[in-house]
């Protein structure tokens, strides 16, 4: 790989607008993520964080502006083409298939690149899932479902992962386990975009925080500035 391709962003979002049904949700969002970075999108409920991930993934069909994934313009791409560029998606509702058992859920997403984890490695990382491998997806606890949702994209070899609220509604011990998994993913050189309500959780992991308000990115806070700007962050998030 040449130096130029290393430094060019994995994800570059420029002036993206997005509509859902009749409401205008994203108003000119711009952000970028470099290779190997963990970036969070924080903000209050209804700020448009989930919609932004859905726009990047191509699930939000009414979108405009520019979204470059690995230097490819994807604004006109269908979701399956975007995924095949090497993007993995862990949706907010986790999206575990009820008609598939745990192994089938794991095996469902096609490989999109080399270098994904093997099923054996995944079961070593999440021993609970191995025990439940024949259970229908929806019989799992919330934590197990979340682990399965993450495990599912680790197998595909995707290099850019979009995680929507991976800790929502989970017990602290599970949150810790998910935090450890995210750190492992970072060590493996994966690039992560994380939507997160739990700022303390996000602060430990992220290189940069984008703050979203009313469908716009209103601030970008580097890891090194977090302590100094804590008051601003608290007022953004209303905590």
């Amino acid at each position, binding site marked *: 790989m040449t130096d130029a391709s290393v430094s060019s962003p994995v994800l570059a979002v420029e002036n993206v607008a997005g509509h859902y049904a009749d409401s205008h949700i994203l108003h000119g969002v711009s952000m970028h993520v470099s290779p190997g970075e963990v970036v969070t999108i924080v903000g209050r409920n209804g700020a448009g964080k989930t919609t932004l991930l859905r726009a990047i*993934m*191509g*699930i939000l069909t009414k979108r405009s502006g520019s979204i470059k994934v690995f230097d490819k313009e994807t604004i006109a791409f*269908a*979701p*399956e083409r*975007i*995924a*095949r560029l090497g993007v993995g*998606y862990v*949706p907010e509702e986790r*999206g575990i*298939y*009820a*008609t*598939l058992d745990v192994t*089938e859920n794991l*095996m*469902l*997403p*096609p490989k*999109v690149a080399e270098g994904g984890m093997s099923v054996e490695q995944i079961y070593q990382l999440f021993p609970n899932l191995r025990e439940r491998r024949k259970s229908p997806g929806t019989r799992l606890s919330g934590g197990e479902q979340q682990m399965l949702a993450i495990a*599912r994209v680790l197998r*595909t070899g995707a290099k850019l992962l979009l995680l929507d609220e991976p800790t929502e509604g989970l017990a602290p011990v599970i949150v810790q386990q998910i935090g450890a998994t995210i750190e492992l993913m970072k060590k493996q050189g994966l690039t992560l975009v994380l939507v997160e309500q739990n700022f303390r959780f996000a602060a430990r992991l992220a290189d940069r925080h984008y703050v979203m308000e009313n469908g716009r990115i209103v601030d970008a806070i580097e890891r090194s500035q977090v302590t100094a700007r804590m008051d601003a962050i608290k007022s953004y998030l209303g905590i």
Partner: protein
Amino acid sequence: MSMQALFGQLLVGLINGSFYAMLSLGLAIIFGLLGITNIAQGAFYMLGGFTTWMLFRWAGIGYFWALLLVPVIVGLVGAAIEKTLLRRVYNLDHMYGLLLTFGIMMFIQGMFVYFFATAGRPYAVPPELGGAYNLGFMFLPKYRGWVVLASVVFCFATWFAIEKTSLGRTLRAATENPTLTRAFGVNVPGLMTVGFGIGVALAGAAGVLAAPIYPVSPLMGADLIIVVFAVVVVGGMGSILGSIVTSMMLGLLEGLTKVVYPQGSNMVIFVIMFVVLLIRPAGLFGRER
């Protein structure tokens, strides 16, 4: 009433059940994946029967080759129809899919009536399957036994493909959550074309099996599809295995009615449909939504 008559009618019931099963199984796959109530399923069955007849008449291609070729041909016709027509109504109310497939049915049927008129055309039982077994309590014409066996094989193969293979896994996922499945990199629109093709290919295969039993005629599917829809209502749209079991059960029941109360045999399935709708509107195997 003689035992001969009883078993004879049960066999007829089993055969009818086999046709119901292949048609309703196809309907269940199509409805699950595309959300379309394919009322043209009977026309694809007729297309299967007619293609079998045409292959033999015009190309000298016999029954067993037809059993292999016809489902592929009918499936390809279905795939072309899905790509050009059905695709346009997915985002609209279910009623549009029903109306569109109704139109497709009228078109296919009308074309065949125009070119071939409505008279039935005979198709010979293949010599390998001629004759009958004497089971002691009844005579079993070989071909009738073959139809039941072949339909069980087709249904089992379809069930196996859906429940145990990676294509089936993807098909089930796309049925449950198409948007997310696309976000994983699966070409769901392409899968829908394949799914519709498989669904109507089952009807086409049933048409091949039917050709030596029922006269091949442009209207052969129109009579069958009404009953098949009643079967689907009884079984519920949701389940693959449910539609197979319900079809066989209702076929047998129909046969049994022919023995004990012949006048009722044409309506027994509809009476059951009526009762099921009253006490379990989603059908015996269906899930309430």
